[in-house]
């Protein structure tokens, strides 16, 4: 188990490093950052001064290593435009994105697990068809379009919920639905498949034979076993939501990490972009690692390979 953990940890670290290196290089492919910072209408002399000031005139490799050395000590540098240490900015915004991610995954689980169980208990019934339709629609519908539809109905036409901001819990209702719905299908199908499989297992027959009530069999015996892979899927999806909330945060104007990422890309705020990518990829990699270890712990067969 220890060797397995060490190996996974090493791979996770390499993934995070590679991601940061790729982002760093991509910034330069999309144009001169000094021109971007100077803004439209700036004169060449101003641009040259900015290039020197921020050290963009140094070789890219030197700039990257310089940044990496700082990052390893927890110093992500200062944001060019926000005029604050990047670490402060990120940790101020992280909770908002966490709340959004957590409420979205909660919405997904609350919707998907009961539907998945229902579909498994009565395969090919009307309920199963309904669940399948919901899954297909959720997978096919672009998130931004769904978000705008929610805004149109819940925000503009019925005036039930505030459209933008992150000041109260009501602000999170629409974004959580929009973000959570996208992962609902995967969770639902996995629950359905798991419960279906478990329901045909011998110990379920035994439980039934003992004369337990059908509900007890379903929830205490079947679901508990079927839910294990769902838990690890949810962990990975949670990581995906933190990184994938850019669109949702932008549409609902939520001041989280995803929105900060989008802003930083537009402003060519290199230190902030770098740090966000690193933080998000580390979180994602950690969650994946956690899921891996959890699975390995639950299923010894995985440890051998």
């Amino acid at each position, binding site marked *: 188990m220890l060797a397995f953990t060490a190996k996974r940890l090493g791979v996770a670290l390499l993934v995070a490093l590679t991601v940061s290196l790729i982002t760093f290089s991509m910034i330069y492919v*999309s*144009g*001169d*950052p000094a*021109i*971007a910072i*100077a*803004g*439209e*209408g*700036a*004169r*060449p*002399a*101003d641009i040259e*001064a900015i290039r020197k*000031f921020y050290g963009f005139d140094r070789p890219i490799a030197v700039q990257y290593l310089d940044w990496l050395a700082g990052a390893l000590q927890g110093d992500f540098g*200062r944001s060019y*435009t*926000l*005029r*604050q240490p990047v670490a402060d900015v990120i940790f101020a915004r992280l909770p908002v994105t966490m709340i959004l991610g957590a409420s979205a995954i909660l919405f997904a689980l*609350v*919707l998907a697990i*009961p*539907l998945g169980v*229902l579909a498994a208990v009565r395969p090919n019934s009307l*309920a199963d068809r309904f669940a399948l339709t919901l899954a297909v629609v959720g997978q096919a519908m672009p998130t931004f379009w769904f978000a*705008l539809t929610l*805004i*149109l109905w*819940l*925000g*503009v036409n*019925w*005036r*039930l*919920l*505030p*459209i*933008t*901001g992150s000041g*109260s819990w*009501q602000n999170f*209702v629409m974004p959580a639905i929009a973000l959570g719905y996208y992962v609902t299908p995967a969770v639902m199908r996995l629950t359905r498949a798991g419960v279906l499989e478990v329901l045909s297992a011998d110990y379920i027959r035994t439980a039934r034979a003992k004369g337990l009530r059908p509900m007890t069999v379903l929830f205490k015996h079947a679901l508990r076993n079927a839910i294990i892979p769902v838990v690890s899927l949810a962990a990975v999806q949670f990581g995906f939501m933190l990184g994938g909330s850019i669109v949702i945060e*932008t*549409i*609902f*104007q939520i*001041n989280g990490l995803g*929105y*900060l990422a*989008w*802003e930083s890309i537009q402003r*060519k705020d290199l230190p902030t972009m770098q740090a966000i990518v690193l933080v998000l990829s580390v979180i994602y990699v950690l969650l994946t690692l956690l899921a891996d270890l959890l699975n390995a712990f639950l299923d010894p067969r995985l440890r051998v390979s």
Partner: protein
Amino acid sequence: MKRVGLIFVGLLLAACLVAAPAIAGKKDDTLVWATDRDNPVADPFYLNTRELVVIGHHVCDTLVIIDPNTAEIKPLLATKWKWASPTSLEMELRKGVKFHSGKVLDADDVVYTLNHAANKDNAIANFALLSWIKDAEKIDASNVRINLRNPFPPALAYLAGLGFIMEKGHYDSAPVKPDGKKDFGAVKANGTGPYKVVEVKPGDSILMEKNADYFKDGFKGNPKISKIKFRTIKDGNTRAAELMTGAIDWMWDVPKDQAERIKANPAVVVENAKTLRVSYLQFDIAGQSGQKFFSDKRVRQALAHAIDRESLTKNLVGPASVVAHSPCHPDQFACSSDVTKYAYDPAKAKALLKEAGFPDGFEFDFYAYRDREYTEAVIGDLAKIGLKPKLNYMQYTAFLENVRKGKTPVAHGTWGSNSVPDVSAMTAHFFSHGADDLTKDPEVKKLIDEADSLTDPAQRKVVWQKALNRIAAEAFWVPLFTYAKYYAFSKDLDFKPTSDEIPQFFAAKWK
């Protein structure tokens, strides 16, 4: 399943029962305006965005101001001024003007601010626009002298645009950045303007409050609306939704199709107004890109005749847009449209191409960065006369880099002149052999240099006319059209758009 559904419906109902409406509108006497850009500081010298120019004109005052309706220079903090010599401007200050801090404005404040801005080391964001200032000196408590590096006749227009006056010592309290330099933009805003900054939430909003002590009978009048809040809302559809629900009161840069849809909403007013931005085609005259077609005047003229600019303005840009004939905005001082005009005439365009030796047209690279639909309309017209433009559409930064390296045979650019209503803010920028000049015509430069050394407006106009005549006759550029902007705002708001793109919220009121 049932239970989940019930919980969900319950949550929604609970939300609607306690949902507090956002503070905005007539009822709260708070005007909320929103754009897609975020403005982490409130100092117009230290962030180069349109929003901060707008906020700057609300929080601070300039020495003089331009009346956007007549393009005339009007008094603001200075009541009188005269040119003591072509490089020396003397100004008398208004008496009894107070900063938000309570201090009374005097010559020391003006001298401090202008010297701060004119010092390159202080790195104000738009340094180039005030770099003509050599220094400023105090004559007495209410008179100052501004010394120029060289004669610069449009000086007053630039002072009016960006010469925001701060209190003496304003930047002394600036925090020091880790690199040892001072972070001037981080200082709390303090001006003499009709509104004062109350709160800055980086990435979210800037709140201003009415300045009850604002001086009477000035150009800006007395502020009427209690609070003005700027908000960043990235997504255009979200902004429109917020406007329709009354969570914001004002937005601009609305795309034409969306403007036409919003118009149907009875709570919203939509207006199309002109702006100083001009769209143009710039040619690689010297052939440095390796595609030498555009060194030939007949080819350039062919392109000018091939584009149906009239239809572009009418069908795509908006009713307030007009065709441009000179590389400047017709509302700018000395920008004349009385030059060689190239009417839409595809047959003539084809004949010119044939004459130049390209009866079947040719393939070339076409660079653009903004408003793709306009670019594609231009390309469509060029294709009709047999040309094969290859579109390279990119971000502004990459576009500018390519232009400056001479890699663009044809560049479809736009220029907003930093809202300065003077021909020099655009034509001189592109034709005085600077980084953005791909023409580098010695004769045009000579004329521009001559024109911009004359302080007499009438004489200046005459020489500028000659420069513009040559540019048009040689078809160095194909000026396309002026931009028009769609504004959308609450029907409760009494607001008039101006062509300088500096919305005057200080003059707005509730109906």
